[in-house]
């Protein structure tokens, strides 16, 4: 196991300890349930709160995006496991500045069940909650069943766009509508070349030959649409763009942002080789690229592979994308 760790049982706790120690200007721990991260400087009273939560092992997702113009708090689970309902309730409580809280997270069974339970807990405390689920992974269900799709890197756009709306002082209804619009505007697809290893499992989640890849794989190693011989960067980029554009066709003049994301081990060098084709494809479609993102934004620890997320913008979303934000992993403006 090519991992640097102590007792796997303590992986997440020790990680969080180092995380807040390294970035005290951005993050602090909150509450008794453990593993709840909130902004170092609480947002101003009356701002709509945005919370997320999910398993560990995806940094900067989820907790890295707590910050100004982004999230207010995050409940952090064990690796690839949902946080508990209690932690989520604590995250909701600290995020609430009296204007209600949006729960914005990925469409995974464990997270949905626990956020539902958390909602039942905070209802007693009269905290007004809404929910928007990310379900952006086109490989995980056909368009007719898009609400069953997994939530992957589209989250990053949703955090940014909803976060900007909240920071501007919009109310819960508007922030929720923006988040839903952002979630609806995103389509993602991933391709993996190697597995990651869940620390406590101690073995790679799946086996894949040295010359193989899997198209459409999820960020926890969930199955994709085909497995076969590793293709060239251009072929991979073309197929991924084909799949995204088939799901969300672009017309000439459309404005989009695109995230070319490493799942972990894949270095930026390879992302740029892919971006070359991504840009050619979008240019050819007549679309204008706004603020492309190339890097590690939503990962699966040391998995090799990439994902693309296409986010179609209207004027409102474009302005929100360009609005300032600040956290240890992403700064705009």
């Amino acid at each position: 196991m090519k991992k640097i760790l102590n007792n796997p049982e303590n992986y997440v706790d020790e990680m969080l300890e180092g995380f807040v120690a390294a970035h005290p200007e951005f993050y602090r721990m909150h509450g008794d349930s453990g593993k709840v991260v909130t902004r170092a400087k609480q947002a101003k009273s009356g701002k709509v709160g945005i919370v997320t939560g999910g398993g560990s092992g995806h940094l900067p997702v989820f907790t890295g995006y707590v910050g100004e113009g982004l999230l207010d708090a995050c409940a952090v689970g064990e690796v690839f496991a949902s946080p508990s309902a209690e932690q989520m309730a604590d995250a909701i409580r600290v995020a609430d500045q009296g204007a209600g809280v949006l729960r914005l997270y990925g469409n995974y069974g464990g997270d949905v069940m626990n956020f539902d339970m958390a909602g039942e807990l905070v209802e007693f405390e009269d905290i007004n909650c809404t929910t928007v689920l990310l379900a952006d992974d086109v490989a995980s269900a056909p368009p007719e069943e898009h609400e069953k799709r997994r939530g992957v890197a589209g989250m990053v756009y949703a955090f940014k766009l909803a976060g900007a709306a909240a920071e501007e002082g919009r109310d819960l209804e508007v922030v929720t509508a923006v988040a839903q619009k952002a979630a609806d505007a995103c389509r993602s697809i991933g391709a993996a070349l190697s597995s990651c290893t869940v620390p406590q499992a101690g073995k790679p989640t799946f086996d894949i030959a040295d010359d193989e890849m899997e198209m459409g794989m999820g960020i926890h190693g969930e199955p994709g649409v085909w497995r076969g011989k590793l293709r060239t960067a251009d072929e991979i980029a073309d197929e991924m763009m084909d799949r995204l554009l088939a799901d969300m066709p672009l017309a000439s003049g459309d404005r989009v942002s695109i995230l070319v994301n490493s799942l972990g081990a894949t270095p930026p060098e390879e992302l740029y080789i892919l971006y070359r084709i991504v840009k050619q494809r979008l240019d050819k479609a007549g679309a204008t690229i706004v603020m492309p993102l190339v890097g590690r934004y939503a990962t699966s620890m040391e998995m090799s592979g990439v994902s693309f997320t296409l986010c179609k913008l209207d004027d409102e979303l474009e302005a929100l994308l360009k609005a300032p934000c600040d956290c240890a992993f992403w700064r705009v403006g």
Partner: protein
Amino acid sequence: MTLAKADLIEAIDRVTAAMERDFDELNAADGALGDGDLGVTLTRGMRAISDMKDDLPDDFGMALFQCAQAFTKSSGSSYGTLMATGLMTAAKTLKGQTEFDAAQISNLVAAARDKMQERGKAELGGKTVLDSLDAVAQATAGLDAPDALADAAAQAVDQALDDIRDKPATIGRARIFGEKSIGMDDPGMLAMQRIVKAAAAR
């Protein structure tokens, strides 16, 4: 025949040992259809329960409540949350009792199944742990002799796997496999087979 705290503690020991034994197998089964953490979820949960077993209250409801909490705190994966939901349901029914009649088992399992279904919004027959619990609830209905109960439950979890194996997964991470999951066991049903058999000492 009635069951009391000593029976609970023995069952905890057997289930904990079974989960340690099946750690890799359950991770691998979940790795094939999901994210590979089911063994982790169950050993973590059972270790947490095992650690506090000597301090469990005599009140059966309170004891199961604490077991449910152990699952909630140790893991938030789907299975951990569902286990907590099921245990909590039984805890509510048994609150205030220091022992209970084995004839209640079928009803307790059925109630857990229903609450878990409400929480996870899965259908019966959808190839999830619900199908194993449903089989147990049905097979144990009307029984109260310990051996008969244990035999029926153990047979039911085996049978459920056989009955469902050739259906496609419909829920959770496994859903995406669709047709490809035909012929494969649902990891959650496999886990429930091991749990029930260990609890029943079968």
